[in-house]
């Protein structure tokens, strides 16, 4: 890695994200004293056969940037970027990269009690940006034989073993360690190295753990993740996982050894990059935020709530490789319910599965696009349920659950994420950033997260949050400037009361919007209605929402709420569909309502919505 210039002397920066499907290059430059996004380039990721070298995809993406700008970045000898900047249109000062290619970091988690150590260990793994393949615990209802079969079959990149409070019994955690020893799982990438195991359990078992696992595995011992029943200490395990990820997993993914020599600072997992920026956003504004990064293979959900930060990665929930799994998990009916036109189950499945087998293709027709938006809503909903499952209060004893429960709805009272107190929802990832109309991204986010009360929505402009996240580790000020100016797109605000009226058309709330001392707008929001009000970027207004007895804006049913709404490229959306959002069961009625909502949101071209309405 080259020596870093002082922040003020940097002129041009190249950042790439090597995603599971595409590699995205972002080229930034200082223009008239201000940092700007100059160009973007994309190419398929080349982690797989026949290429098996991620740097080919990186070079292809950067070639697009070169074509668009005429700025020469790539070295002729194929050995990386021209650094430092040479003057004119040649060279760059900094090159950084994130990556989620090769399926990211895939981990297996083992803990003694499912709802305690195993859950804390799962949080640590997810927090490090890992995909958790399975969680094994002494009380998970599976026999030891089954556990051994799982350990052998899954071929993880890494294992996290935890269990027992310090000073407590060591038997159970040693039993898990023995299982691991008998199974001797093999790493996924590369046969030649020892599988990394992080031990974050009862400290009294350490010497026995070393005896059992020390020779067979690359064992790292860190502080106990649950030193006491009521204390959770995730950081040491999380850091060890990140360290081992760089050492082992990245080193064995094809081409990373080369790429890691090209970059100016360590390659960061994509979710870690995204989370860095979302956490920065929450901190700077002092707000509660939920974020989503929807990729091709996985969907990451982030939350920063009253100082508590949580990141989850839902493996197999994504818009390309994993699109078939969203269909499987959500079911055909749940995807169909968002489509404003008639389509047979067979045709819908064909569209979705054809995308799965040709993951880099993009929709060419509006119908195909609407199908992808429908799948995205369901995918984010599933991933958010997974997130809420872990966003719960620490408890010593909990109701028993199984791992298959994580995609089920988590009752509102179980999660600490109070949707009324979420100030912002932030979206990033290919599908959301590339939505042809920002209105589509806003609608997908509203339908998937179902915010309550008054919530602002923000979007990553062209997918650069991971890029800025890794950049912020060396040049925080440049990263922040770009984040504000080029990355964040303010979509607007959604005002959504909780509750349901007995019939559609009944009053949800009387709304007053106060734009200025003499400028007011009043209307009644009806049940089953969406009303969008234009309020430009940077503009603000006061709203008074007087809900009917069936609805609640956060202060109780029927209680009025006054607040501020901010404008954006979409505007202010008054969502009278109620919470939890329930769509009409009858297909014809449902499609009619969808057309009304989509018209109100200007989601797709008007003439096409008319066509769908008639069909």
């Amino acid at each position, binding site marked *: 890695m080259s020596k870093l210039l002082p922040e003020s002397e940097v002129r041009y920066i190249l950042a790439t994200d090597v995603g599971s499907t595409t590699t995205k290059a972002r080229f930034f430059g200082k223009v008239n004293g201000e940092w700007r996004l100059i160009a973007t380039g994309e190419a398929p990721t080349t982690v797989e056969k026949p290429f098996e070298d991620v740097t080919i995809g990186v070079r292809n993406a950067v*070639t697009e940037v070169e074509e668009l700008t005429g700025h020469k970045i790539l070295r002729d000898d194929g050995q990386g970027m021209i650094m430092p900047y040479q003057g004119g249109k040649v060279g760059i000062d900094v090159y950084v990269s994130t990556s989620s290619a090769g399926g990211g970091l895939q981990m297996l988690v083992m803990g003694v009690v499912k709802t305690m150590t195993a859950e804390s260990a799962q949080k640590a793994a997810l927090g490090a940006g890992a995909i958790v393949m399975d969680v094994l615990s002494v009380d998970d209802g599976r026999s030891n034989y089954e556990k051994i079969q799982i350990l052998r079959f899954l071929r993880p990149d890494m294992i996290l073993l935890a269990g027992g409070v310090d000073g407590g019994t060591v038997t159970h955690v040693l039993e898990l360690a023995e299982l691991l020893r008998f199974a001797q799982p093999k790493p996924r990438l590369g046969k030649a190295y020892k599988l990394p195991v992080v031990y974050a359990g009862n400290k009294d078992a350490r010497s026995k753990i070393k005896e059992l696992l020390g020779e067979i595995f690359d064992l790292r011992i860190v502080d106990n993740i649950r030193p006491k029943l009521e204390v959770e200490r995730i950081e040491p395990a999380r850091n060890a996982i990140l360290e081992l990820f760089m050492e082992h997993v990245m080193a064995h993914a094809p081409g990373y050894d080369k790429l890691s020599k090209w970059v100016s600072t360590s390659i960061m997992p994509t979710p870690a990059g995204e989370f860095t920026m979302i956490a920065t956003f929450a901190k700077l504004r002092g707000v509660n935020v939920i974020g989503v990064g929807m990729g091709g293979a996985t969907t990451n959900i982030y939350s920063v709530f009253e100082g508590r930060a949580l990141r989850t990665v839902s493996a197999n929930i994504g818009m390309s490789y994993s699109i078939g799994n969203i269909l499987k998990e959500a079911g055909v009916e749940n995807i169909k319910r968002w489509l404003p036109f008639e389509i047979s189950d067979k045709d819908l499945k064909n569209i979705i599965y054809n995308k799965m087998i040709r993951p880099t293709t993009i929709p*060419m027709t509006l119908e195909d696009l609407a199908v992808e938006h429908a799948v995205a809503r369901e995918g984010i909903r599933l991933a958010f349920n997974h997130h809420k499952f872990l966003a719960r209060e620490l408890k010593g004893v909990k109701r028993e659950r199984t791992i298959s429960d994580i995609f089920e709805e988590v009752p509102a009272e179980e999660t600490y994420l109070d949707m009324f107190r979420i100030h912002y929802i932030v979206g990033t990832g290919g599908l959301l950033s590339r939505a042809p109309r920002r209105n589509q991204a806003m609608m997908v986010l509203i339908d998937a997260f179902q915010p309550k009360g008054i919530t602002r929505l923000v979007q990553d402009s062209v997918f650069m949050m991971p890029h800025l996240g890794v950049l912020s580790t060396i040049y925080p000020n440049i990263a922040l400037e770009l984040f504000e100016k080029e990355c964040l797109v303010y979509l607007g605000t959604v005002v959504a009361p909780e509750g349901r009226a007995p019939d559609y058309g009944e009053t949800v709330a009387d709304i007053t919007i106060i734009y200025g001392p003499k400028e007011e707008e009043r209307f009644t929001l009806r049940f089953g209605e969406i009303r969008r009000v234009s309020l430009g970027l940077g503009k603000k207004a006061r709203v008074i929402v007087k809900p009917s007895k069936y609805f609640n804006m956060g202060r109780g049913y029927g209680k009025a709420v006054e607040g501020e709404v901010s404008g954006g490229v979409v505007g202010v959306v008054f969502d009278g569909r109620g919470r939890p959002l329930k769509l009409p069961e009858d297909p014809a009625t449902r499609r009619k309502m969808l057309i009304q909502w989509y018209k109100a949101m200007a989601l797709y071209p008007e003439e096409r919505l008319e066509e769908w309405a008639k069909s």
Partner: protein
Amino acid sequence: MVRYAKRGHAYTPGLKVTACTYVKKERLLPLHGEVLVREGDEVDFNTVVARAYIEGSPVIVKVAEMLGLEPDEVPRYMVKKVGDKVRKGEVLASFRAFFGLIKKEVRSPIDGYIDYISESTGHVVVKEEPKPIEVKAYIKGRVLKTIPKEGAIIGTPAAFVQGIFGLSGERNGEIAVAVSRRDEVLTPDKITEEHHGKIVVGGSLVTYEAIEKAIKVGAVGIVVGGAYMDDLEKLLGYPIGVAITGREPISITIVLTEGFGKMSMSKRAFDIFLKYEGRKAAISGATQIRAGVIRPEVVIPLDRSECPADESIAEKVEEGIMEPGTLVRIIRFPYFGMIGRVVSLPIELMKIETESPVRVVEVELEDGRRVIVPRANVEVLTG
């Protein structure tokens, strides 16, 4: 003014469909074992090239709990030592007290041997005897190289058709084309007893009933343009979430060359099957789209006199570069399956029907129409 690039890369590496190439297959054991062939050997489809013994499954016996002992006391009461063979029901450990008045015994739940006795948990691990696993040659050809303890690389000149999605594992049989046109649907009436042991080639679609019939007559494989996912899921009895296949427990291997739905098989592929009808081929449905792309395939080994390809061809990596004149195939609705030549590669992003600004390619289709499609939605035809 629209600017054009001289060349660009396709986003999807094209599927390989070629009448003559050199196919190399690494045939490796999942763990170390014995290699049974030598470099230069001629092998047939079913020749066993390597064999290993996989460790038997372990069964944990909670001896301390069963005898009411502390874990570290267990070794003292063991009747069997580590490494000893045991039969099901044989005594593993025995505890006597009060001159034999109290007697407790723990018996082995399986046939096997004692693998481990733990003083930390008081558990004893009994393992089943190792089981042999074999790796076959899969294709007819020559052993190019052996890899000590792991297996061998087999090579042969061959016609090679890569599919897009498949089900079930490796099999072999004679090619039998059951349709007369590549857009014809493979229905049960076209499958007869004569297809027993054969790879049945269909056109645009295989119906559920036709798959059932093929299984009934004992066909080993079906190669076809498309199938409905609904039908495949009905066949398997469970939904497919992630495209990782190859181990489905069905007695037939299915390879789709185009995708899901009714989709005419590409002319290239269909012509290859017509040409080599009656020849023996290897078929595999294994598909893994993520991390290490494995596509399903049909390999028809050929003599050098018919196909003069040698090893150097197999080494070539196709980069999928597009230039004006390059032959491409569109791989997404509404032009799915259409073939054409690249006319131009505009540099600037252009808006398509979805209003999305994307990198595009201008293609002249075989019927003379010129269409603009996202670069992401074409594959370069290779081979």
